[in-house]
């Protein structure tokens, strides 16, 4: 006779990330994720829950008061437009996680990061803020700069410095102020856990502006990757023509990065900074083959428009790095396989979950692909990021414990 266990009344349970993600943990077990290192290059926390702490880090006392009074939520100091990313309650972790119980130590954000990382079997995660990504669209540049400095200092002091090497970040650069970007790289480039710098794509400055050349040279010299993190803004003139989140998200998260990639190539930045590693985050993958074909075709007819390029644009694009999420996989695995070939995914693709956002991807989105061999799966899930960011081999404590129980050597496989 079959036994009934774990009889639960879901309505009476409090939210806990580990329970919410228990099926992810089961996936990790059945796929032997304990045997290798998984790096998540794009994950987020909700810094709004610690915003009063962050506001204390704002140098300008007038802005500090404004931030503490006004807050960071909708209608707050840097808000621009409404959103219903949470799908009006369908994605339950958005409303429920605020009430998730954590112990007094370590910092709440560290505990919450570890919980989902352990469930997904992620060993190391590059964490980014959530609402504060959108300070890039704030029309008051001094506000963007002040908040960027405050967030970066808070993150380094309270999160990255105080945990055991599993949490990293590519720090926010306030791209609307090139001098401030340079200053931030100088001040934070060697802080613990800083593995690069990140620009949110929804800005209205050209990436080939001469004002940024010193920034790129600094990053190249320090061997710190530069990432463009996709985003959307309903304040964009063209995207304001859309009326549903799905539309503004599907287009916005690709459009802004396509624009910057095009300018990056046409102005020969890969030739001017050949050792600068560039990462394109959260635009999915389908846009890359499209842009490769588009630019290659036009370049062959109009090479005089991009005279610094010595090869076709797609050759340079194949040398850049891409995070995997949100990986388009609906109904056409053949297209996905071709995409992997075109971007040289075996060396250039970096797994990312984007957890806890609504379109997050589990490691199984990579691990279950039938056209990858075991080594390619492991490289995309962790090895490529480990090489790109010079990360030490790190396994989560839970992996060590389970491996010890299985009698496996503690070194990562």
């Amino acid at each position: 006779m079959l036994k009934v266990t774990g009889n639960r009344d879901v309505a009476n349970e409090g939210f806990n990330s580990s329970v919410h993600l228990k099926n992810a943990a089961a996936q990790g077990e059945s796929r032997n994720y304990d045997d290798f290192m998984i790096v998540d290059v794009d994950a987020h926390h909700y810094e709004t829950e610690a915003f009063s702490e962050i506001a204390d880090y704002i140098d300008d006392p007038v802005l500090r008061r404004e931030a503490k009074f006004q807050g960071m939520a909708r209608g707050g100091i840097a808000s621009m437009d409404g959103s219903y990313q949470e799908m009006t309650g369908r994605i339950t972790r958005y409303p429920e996680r605020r009430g998730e119980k954590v112990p007094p130590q370590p910092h709440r954000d560290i505990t919450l990061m570890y919980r989902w990382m352990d469930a997904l079997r992620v060993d190391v995660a590059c964490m980014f803020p959530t609402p504060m990504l959108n300070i890039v669209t704030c029309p008051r540049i001094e506000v963007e700069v002040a908040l960027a400095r405050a967030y970066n200092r808070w993150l380094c002091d309270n999160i990255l410095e105080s945990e055991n090497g599993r949490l990293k970040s590519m720090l926010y650069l306030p791209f609307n102020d090139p001098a401030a970007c340079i200053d931030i790289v100088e001040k934070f480039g060697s802080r613990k856990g800083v593995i690069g710098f990140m620009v949110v794509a929804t800005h209205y400055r050209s990436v080939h502006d001469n004002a940024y050349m010193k920034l790129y040279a600094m990053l190249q010299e320090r061997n710190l990757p530069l990432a463009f993190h996709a985003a959307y803004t309903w304040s964009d003139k063209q995207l304001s023509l859309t009326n549903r989140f799905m539309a503004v998200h599907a287009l916005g998260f690709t459009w802004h990065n396509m624009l910057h990639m095009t300018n990056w190539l046409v102005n020969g930045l890969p030739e001017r900074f050949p050792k600068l590693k560039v990462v394109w985050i959260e635009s999915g993958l389908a846009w890359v083959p499209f842009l490769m074909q588009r630019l290659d075709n036009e370049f062959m007819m109009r090479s005089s428009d991009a005279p610094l390029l010595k090869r076709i644009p797609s050759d340079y694009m194949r040398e850049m790095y891409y995070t995997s999420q949100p990986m388009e996989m609906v109904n056409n695995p053949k297209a996905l396989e071709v995409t992997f070939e075109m971007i040289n995914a075996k060396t250039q693709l970096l797994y990312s979950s984007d957890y806890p956002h609504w379109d997050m991807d589990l490691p199984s989105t990579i691990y279950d692909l039938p056209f990858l061999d075991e080594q390619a799966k492991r490289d995309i899930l962790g090895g490529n990021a480990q090489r790109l960011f010079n990360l030490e081999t790190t396994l989560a404590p839970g992996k060590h414990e389970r491996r010890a129980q299985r009698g496996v050597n503690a070194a990562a496989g």
Partner: protein
Amino acid sequence: MSEQVPVCRSDELKEGAVRVCTIGDVEIGIIRHNGGCHAYKNVCPHQGGPVCEGVRMPQVEDVIDENGLFVCQKFNENDMHIVCPWHGYEFHIESGEHVIDPKVRLKKYDVVEREGQIYVAI
């Protein structure tokens, strides 16, 4: 030959509530809807989320008038969906089929309710 496994008393599963239990090694959600019960494996066919633990939402409809003009949106309460809490995949509560692609479906189990007890056939 399926076995009818008792999971809870009828009065323990109120209208709109969900019971999640593990039978053998399969986690199953039993959902009370319109007086009846529906049981599905608690794994979403998309990425494996705990699909029975999400909210139930009605079908959203765009209202278009006879001239093709958009009027408003509304909920169709006659077509309730199970919504996976991980990514929002939606399934018809009666059939377990995805609302757009019926080939994408939840693993469904028969439910029997008799003498104040709910049984899942597995």
